[in-house]
């Protein structure tokens, strides 16, 4: 085999590796050919071949770099999600014997964070799983949206009555461990319940229909869990104002400025839709005919589409 034939064969081999998707092997092969040619100054078309190899090396390196870039897990079909849920056996110690917890852990493992959080949230209502589920929710939020989202969720729980103080201490430790593991320098030991920072609305104001009334479940207070329906007083873009009568004591004590209202239903003359709202204001009316009543402002943050 002549020197030229040898180079041709090696170039062919490198291209074959590339065609097989073996990028590192192709790159290594091109590098070795380059070295080989550099030792042969009298080779015909030497510079042309070397410049072609340089172009190929650059392209392959870019492909490798792109491939190594961390990517978010794609959202998958319902069928694939069901298969994923079955992959964590109920017998695994981490699942505490619950197929539902196992399924949610599995979804988390596959990066299906939205669905996993939804399933963990359902499990918060079941005593044997609530602490684990809360920990997994924080874990999902850390991975998917970052530490601020996890801290913000913990703050929501602090201002909620869903967890006892003992449980909150355990969840706080779990959050601290997650932050430490992620290298986030933030001490959550002194974190107190407080209003959440007002989130931006994800809804285009022009797309919002006129809303007549809203329905939601009270998350705390004496009437916790009760569904409340209130008429809209006026609407400004994605902010709705509602008057809460002074007689509705359970509603007044169950809503505070800074609360997130999940699963809120909006009634418009032409459609009913659900979404998430944020209580941007809840203050007592101090004068006028509505004196003693409360003015509640709800900012529509998100509309659920399916």
């Amino acid at each position, binding site marked *: 085999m002549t020197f030229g034939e040898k180079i041709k064969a090696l170039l062919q*081999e490198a291209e074959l590796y590339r065609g097989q998707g*073996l990028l590192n092997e192709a790159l290594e092969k091109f590098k070795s050919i380059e070295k080989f040619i550099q030792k042969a100054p009298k080779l015909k078309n030497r510079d042309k071949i070397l410049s072609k190899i340089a172009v190929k090396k650059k392209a392959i390196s870019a492909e490798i770099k792109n491939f190594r870039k961390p990517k978010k897990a794609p959202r*998958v079909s319902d069928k694939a999600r069901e298969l994923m849920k079955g992959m964590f056996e109920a017998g695994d110690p981490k699942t505490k014997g619950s197929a539902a917890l196992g399924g949610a852990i599995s979804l988390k493992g596959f990066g299906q964070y939205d669905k996993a959080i939804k399933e963990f949230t359902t499990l918060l209502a079941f005593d044997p799983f609530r602490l684990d589920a809360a920990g997994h929710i924080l874990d999902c939020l850390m991975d998917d949206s970052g530490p601020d989202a996890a801290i913000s969720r913990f703050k929501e729980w602090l201002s909620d009555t869903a967890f006892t103080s003992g449980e909150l201490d355990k969840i706080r430790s779990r959050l601290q461990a997650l932050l430490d593991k992620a290298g986030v320098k933030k001490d959550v030991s002194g974190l107190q319940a407080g209003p959440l920072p007002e989130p931006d609305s994800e809804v285009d104001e022009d797309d919002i229909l006129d809303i007549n009334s809203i329905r939601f479940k009270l998350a705390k207070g004496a009437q916790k869990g009760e569904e409340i329906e209130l008429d809209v007083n006026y609407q400004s873009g994605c902010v709705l104002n509602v008057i809460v009568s002074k007689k509705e004591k359970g509603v007044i004590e169950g809503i505070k400025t800074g609360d997130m209202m999940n699963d809120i239903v909006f009634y418009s003359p032409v459609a009913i839709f659900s979404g998430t709202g944020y209580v941007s204001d809840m203050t007592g009316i101090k004068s006028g005919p509505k004196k003693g009543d409360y003015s509640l402002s709800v900012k529509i943050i998100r509309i659920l589409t399916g």
Partner: protein
Amino acid sequence: MAVINLKNREIECKIVYYGPGRCGKTTNLEYIHKAFKRQVTGEMISIDTDGDRTLFFDFLPLGLGKIKGCDVKVQLYTVPGQVQYRSTRKLVLKGADAIIFVADSLKVRREKNMISLKDLHGNLKETGISILKIPLVLQFNKRDLASKGFPLMSTDQMNKELNRQLKAPTFEASALSGDGVGATLTKCMKLTLQHLQKEFKWAQ
């Protein structure tokens, strides 16, 4: 772990295709999907990312019909081969009844085969399963590439390096053309059913 319902005489077992990235695991399933249409009982699910690399797994359900009075169903899965997806591989491996290890015959992939086999060994060990006890078949894939000028390892060398201790049945294959794909799967299913018979005496 296989689901065995003796009352309804049903067996459902899980076979996992394992091996390094780009070795041809998905290609095996694609060929089975195409060539064993009568046995395929549902759609093939594939979740791949850029560059045709499997990100999570592929899934293909098969129905083998009645064997010794039992309705036998098999679920075939592949794992993502790239090194960084270890935790996903562990998830997919959970409850596996048998493994088909697809080794890449290309000389340049020698080390990757060994790393992947070691990874399989470690992942099985973590779930309390010995690689020597689970039904296992080795497939030496891409044998056809010799004719295209790729330097391949000899099957002797591959046997010596990957199978000296395992002593698992081996098959030469070319998943792209389908050569050896059916033989590998048939042998693995045979071993799986024999293993389950030993454990659960389902054929009595």
